[in-house]
């Protein structure tokens, strides 16, 4: 694993009586695409504010490139570019002038880079219009260009898909993939699990200021075992047969004439054999990977984007896929 560029150790933060972060630790390796997940109020934005040097922690440390984000902010900030939850830009300036202004705060204006960035985020045509006339999606794209000024090693993105239409989200995904291929480290905070699932190498799930899970996506999504979808000729008979197999939990599938089987170990061949012996037709047996959404709901008890984020965790959802999406 490459050296970490972001190191957070036992980070704590309180706002009055509210505990926003409770000794969270995480690290992001150089070149990694890192997903930062959690429902509203989980502490994601607080963590990002501390990383950006906007707030100081009550306890623990946050470092970027080995530099403390609060006490050594200037050196840490040379390594990253960031977008905030809501794109913050000067409405009375044009998109190009906004980039010039932020570039100047880095020391010098590189017109060639500004033109390239505007092209990269697809804003060349509207670059000379005032930002107050931009749509939310255009502001998001310009904010992303702002974050990439000076070619930072690390890109911190707080909900960058907010306000983007499906085309915009698709474009952002392609852009971030390209940046990741070029070796840029991306710290991606989002509640859109599909984006995280498609983009990120590793995720941390935060809930109520605590890290609930951390690790590579592949590990996280199989953490609770195996799941199979089997298309059969007789659902009732198939369920009876599978129930008799040791360690198998079976339920009707969401697709017609199918069953879902969950198990702690890989029992695909055992199931197939039992069904064939019992004379049940097996059209296909698919090893279905658990979605990140399932893991997320299990860990936080909150469906992504749910208004229940601050309420007590509801009981585990009955249906594993799709049903919890709000």
């Amino acid at each position, binding site marked *: 694993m490459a050296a970490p560029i972001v190191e957070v150790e036992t980070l704590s933060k309180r706002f009055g009586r509210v505990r926003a972060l409770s000794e969270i630790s995480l690290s992001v390796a150089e070149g990694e695409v890192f997903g930062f997940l959690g429902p509203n109020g989980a502490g994601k934005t607080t963590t990002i504010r501390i990383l*950006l040097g906007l*707030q100081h922690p009550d306890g623990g440390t946050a470092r970027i490139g080995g530099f403390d984000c609060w006490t050594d902010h*200037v050196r840490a900030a040379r390594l990253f570019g960031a977008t*905030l939850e809501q794109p913050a830009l000067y409405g009375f*300036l044009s998109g190009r002038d906004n980039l010039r202004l932020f570039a100047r*705060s880095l020391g010098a204006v590189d017109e060639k880079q500004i033109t390239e960035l505007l092209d990269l985020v697809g804003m060349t045509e509207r670059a000379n219009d005032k930002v107050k006339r931009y749509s939310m999606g255009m502001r998001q794209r310009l904010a992303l260009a702002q974050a990439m000024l000076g070619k930072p090693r690390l890109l911190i993105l707080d909900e960058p898909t907010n306000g983007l239409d499906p085309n915009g989200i698709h474009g952002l995904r392609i852009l971030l993939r390209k940046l990741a291929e070029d070796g840029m480290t991306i710290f991606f905070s989002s509640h859109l699990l599909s984006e995280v699932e498609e983009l990120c190498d590793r995720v941390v799930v935060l809930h109520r200021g605590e890290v609930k899970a951390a690790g590579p996506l592949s590990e996280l999504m199989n953490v609770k075992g195996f799941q199979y979808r089997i298309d059969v000729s007789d659902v009732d008979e198939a369920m009876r047969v599978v129930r008799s197999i040791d360690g198998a939990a079976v339920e009707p599938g969401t697709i017609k004439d199918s069953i879902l089987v969950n198990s702690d170990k890989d029992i695909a061949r055992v199931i197939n054999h039992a069904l064939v012996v019992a004379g049940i037709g097996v059209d296909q047996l698919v090893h279905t990977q658990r979605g990140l959404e399932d893991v997320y709901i299990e860990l936080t008890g909150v469906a992504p984007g749910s208004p229940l984020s601050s309420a007590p965790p509801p009981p585990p959802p009955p249906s594993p896929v799709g049903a919890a999406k709000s």
Partner: protein
Amino acid sequence: MLLISLVRNEIKKTWRSRWIVFAVMGGIFLLIAGGLYTYYVISQGRWSPPPAVAWQTTLKAEIASDQQQLNFMEQAKQQGNGGPTSGPFSIDSAITLVKQQIADDQYLLDHDIAPLQSYSITVAALFAMGGIVMFLIIRIFGWLASEQIAGERSDRTLAVLLSRPMSRSQLLLAKAVASFLISLAVVVVTFLIVYAVFAFVEGSVGPVTGQVGLAIDAAKPLGSSNLVVMPILVFVLICLGATMLGVLCVQGMSLLVSAVFGRWAAIGITLAVLFGAPLVSTVVAVIIIGISQDPNKAHFLNYLFVNVLAPVSSISAVFGNGPGGSAGIGLGEFEKENLTLAAWTVAFFAAAWLLFRRKQEAG
């Protein structure tokens, strides 16, 4: 180098977002200029002024006029029609003041030192500029400075700036320097416009070189130990310096408020102080003088924040070496008031810096 870039950014932001304010200010100056000239034409009954008169002639005429006034007051006193016979508003006090003015003018005449009044255009321009600064410019720049951090906080652009590789001290300094430079340009342009207006009204640009004599303590008779002689240009620079110190003090206070609050709270507090404090201190001064019958009892108010800005608006009175006790306060008092103003200014900027560098920004 970074600081220059940041200052440039701040100037650009102020200009691009608030150009309408400067346009309105320009319009107000034009209205003032037009109004002054109209007043001149109506009150004097002529389109252009008479030829300028040598200062010695004016001073001799002033001495003669004061002598006439002195005779009248002494006559009134003998007849018992001179009002109160004791206290600061008594006939004796008035007689003493006029006597001192005659003695002062005679001293200047004897030693060939021009009084400030001989630079009438300069004095009028400084006086008018002082008034415009006191009543308009410090409020406008107080408002603009109060938005410098607070406005960006409300628009969330402050979080983006603070996440860039610059220290908060650099950002605060850049904002302070940018505010100062913009206000300096406006004050200098105001002075030049007002000077041009008066020069037009007078039909002459007036003397722009030469020496001027100023009392150190205006309450005492002029003499070699109570007189500072300096080139008129130095005097103008001192006045502009005092004006800018006043503006800077207000900007320091506004930045302090701005470092803590959001846009509307910062603007509200700043304008409440700038409009409310003179009103409150005037009421307090009137009450104190009314009860004590002694103007000196309210003197301490001159060292409070807004009152200390008074030298800005009453520059000619401050330096007036004429009837000292009634108007001018002399160079010594002026220096003390400006030192107090400087102390306030340093305190405001220091407090703004201390608060801003530790402020937690919500982003």
